[in-house]
């Protein structure tokens, strides 16, 4: 019957079996792809697109190009050595008058002010005092007459450097670098060079939180992995409940507990250890406590699953061969938890470097991490180029760490280290 069926099928079509199999495979693949596609398209619109847009903004330089188009064109061939010639001045005078009528002077001056401090004043003053278009041949004298800054090379270098269409200005700025008048990359002036500090602080706090989580999480994971399943399931609630409790609730709770009239200070005063309340919140201490609390479950859970898979037979074997408990722990148990330690630490560190809410609520001005500055430049000062550039650096760091994490966890899955 089967033979007849196969023969019949063969007879009905001349296509060889191999090709039909291939075709069936392809249909299956296409069907699978059709199921995945809606989500991919959705993420393209709600996630990948927005992030690509943000990255684009970190190199996009449109303001000067759009507001002062003739000036940008006139400066295209300028070698940047001396002050440009009369045509550039004439173009600038025309552009400024057009921009003044269109109300777009502020857009360009804001961007130019990033390139050269004080440019905003130069631009607004010029726009205000440029009564009529200068007679042909007199644009240079007219503009320098309004503001002598137009006679300086640095002013024109600033315009040229901001002419776009692409710029490395924001990305360099995010790393405390800038270009000098001659176009060489140099350290940014001291009062503007704050981002290396901010990145350093972000990494220091994240590293500190990771280490604290590891120190606090290790014994918990060990106890949970060692206790009988019934007991460890009950104790697991102590880890899972905080994990599931809203971040805002936990942050709020720490403020209530640690504030100067809070439970900790009241208790310490009642015992008589202190007379004046300690400052425990709105500083670095508060950031460490609250962030460690928030991220600790992310350390405990991977550690726990790596420890669960360690057979107690190894420890017994070590003991039977005469190893002291300390030796057995250090030489037999600990090395087997290394994948769990790696996964947990990386996870906590990745989450910590991007944290915004907790430091924003419990930290002081000197404890704000990189996310705070990205938010600040986006909503407060509307320096979107810089916000995007800082975001690009943070994104790069996160993705690099995530790739390492992916390799680590994947490798473990292959060896059966972290199945759950």
């Amino acid at each position, binding site marked *: 019957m089967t033979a007849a069926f196969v023969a019949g099928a063969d007879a009905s079509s001349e296509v060889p079996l191999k090709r039909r199999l291939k075709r069936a495979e392809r249909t299956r693949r296409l069907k*699978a792809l059709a199921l995945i596609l809606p*989500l991919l398209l959705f993420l393209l619109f709600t996630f990948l697109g*927005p*992030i690509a847009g943000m990255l684009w903004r970190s190199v996009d330089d449109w303001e000067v190009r759009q507001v002062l188009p003739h000036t940008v064109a006139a400066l295209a061939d300028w070698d940047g050595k001396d002050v440009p010639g009369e045509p550039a001045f004439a173009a600038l005078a025309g552009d400024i008058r057009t921009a003044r009528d269109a109300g777009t002077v502020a857009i360009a001056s804001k961007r130019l002010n990033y390139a050269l401090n004080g440019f905003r004043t130069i631009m607004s003053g010029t726009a205000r005092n440029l009564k009529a278009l200068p007679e042909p041949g007199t644009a240079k004298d007219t503009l320098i007459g309004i503001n002598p800054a137009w006679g300086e090379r640095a002013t024109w270098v600033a315009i040229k450097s901001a002419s776009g269409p692409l710029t490395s200005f924001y990305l360099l700025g995010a790393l405390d670098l800038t270009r000098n008048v001659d176009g060489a990359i140099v350290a940014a002036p001291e009062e503007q060079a704050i981002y290396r500090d901010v990145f350093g602080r972000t990494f220091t706090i994240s590293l500190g939180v990771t280490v604290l989580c590891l120190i606090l999480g290790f014994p918990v994971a060990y106890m949970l992995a060692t206790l009988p399943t019934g007991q460890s399931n009950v104790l697991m609630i102590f880890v899972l409940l905080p994990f599931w409790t809203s971040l805002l609730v936990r942050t709020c709770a720490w403020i209530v507990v640690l504030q100067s009239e809070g439970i900790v200070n009241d208790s310490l005063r009642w015992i008589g250890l202190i007379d004046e309340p300690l400052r425990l919140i709105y500083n670095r201490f508060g950031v460490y406590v609250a962030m460690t609390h928030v991220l600790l479950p992310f350390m405990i859970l991977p550690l726990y699953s790596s420890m669960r898979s360690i057979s107690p037979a190894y420890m017994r074997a070590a003991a039977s061969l005469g190893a002291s408990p300390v030796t057995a*722990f250090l030489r037999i148990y600990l090395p087997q938890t290394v994948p769990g330690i790696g996964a947990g630490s990386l996870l906590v560190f990745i989450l910590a470097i991007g944290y915004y809410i907790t430091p924003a609520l419990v930290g002081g001005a000197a404890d704000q991490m990189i996310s705070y500055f990205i938010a600040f430049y986006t909503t407060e000062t509307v320096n979107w180029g810089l916000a995007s550039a800082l975001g690009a650096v943070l994104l790069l760091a996160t993705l690099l760490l995530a790739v390492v994490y992916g390799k680590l966890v994947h490798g473990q899955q292959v060896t059966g280290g972290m199945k759950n």
Partner: protein
Amino acid sequence: MSDNHAPRTASQRVAWITTVVMASLVLVFLMAPILAIMPLSFSSGSYLTYPLPGLSLRWYEDFLNSPRWVSSLKNSVIIGVASTILSMVLGTLASLGLAQWKSKFKPLVLAIVLSPVVVPGVITAVGLYFFFAPLGLTGSYAGLILAHTALSTPFVVITVSATLQSFDMNLARAAASLGASPIYAFRRVILPLILPGLASGALFAFATSFDEVVVVLFMAGPEQRTLPREMFSGIRENISPTITAAAVILTTISVILLATLEALRRRNERLKGNLR
């Protein structure tokens, strides 16, 4: 395996007791702040200090009588439910596709699908803010629902994919060989079996949206403020007992979600145990 870890020698016992003491202290550290804040919401006084002057429900009344808080709770539920439904549809379809898709690009697609979990909230929020503003999607429910869906779908994909992994695809083939159309087979054979996994996915998705605040901070207009967003500004200004009442309400919802998930997990484990 656990009883084999039982301490044998005196030094082992000391080490074990030390571990238990340290671990217990850490567990107390994890629970204490949450437990400490709860009773304050039942205080009759207006200061957040112990001892409580007396018990009362006035702060809950205050919460329920405040249009600001009530509408934020409503917004959280609306946005949470809508983004859960959307992420369940997209996530389940994609999980079904991924389960039968063999390609060298699969790791890349998986990485893209899961990336919203890894990328810092501020970056997603800023990107969406730039991207959605010209489309008129900032300050709208639609924008927030779309954004929350992007953030919750990875959890749906993870949970549903895990369920599909233990699902025997031969059952679907059997249904097909008996003449069931793919949709009928899905509805009558696959769906009932993976339903607990879908339910966990939905809970994860809802919890993700319900707790999200960074995107809401950037994107929500005054009309769309959610409960976490309202708490954020409340904590910034001045922590009143009403906030502790809001915290208790939020925590209660988390506990219900967690308990449901745990019940689903246990049921699943029991079923697996029976099959063996």
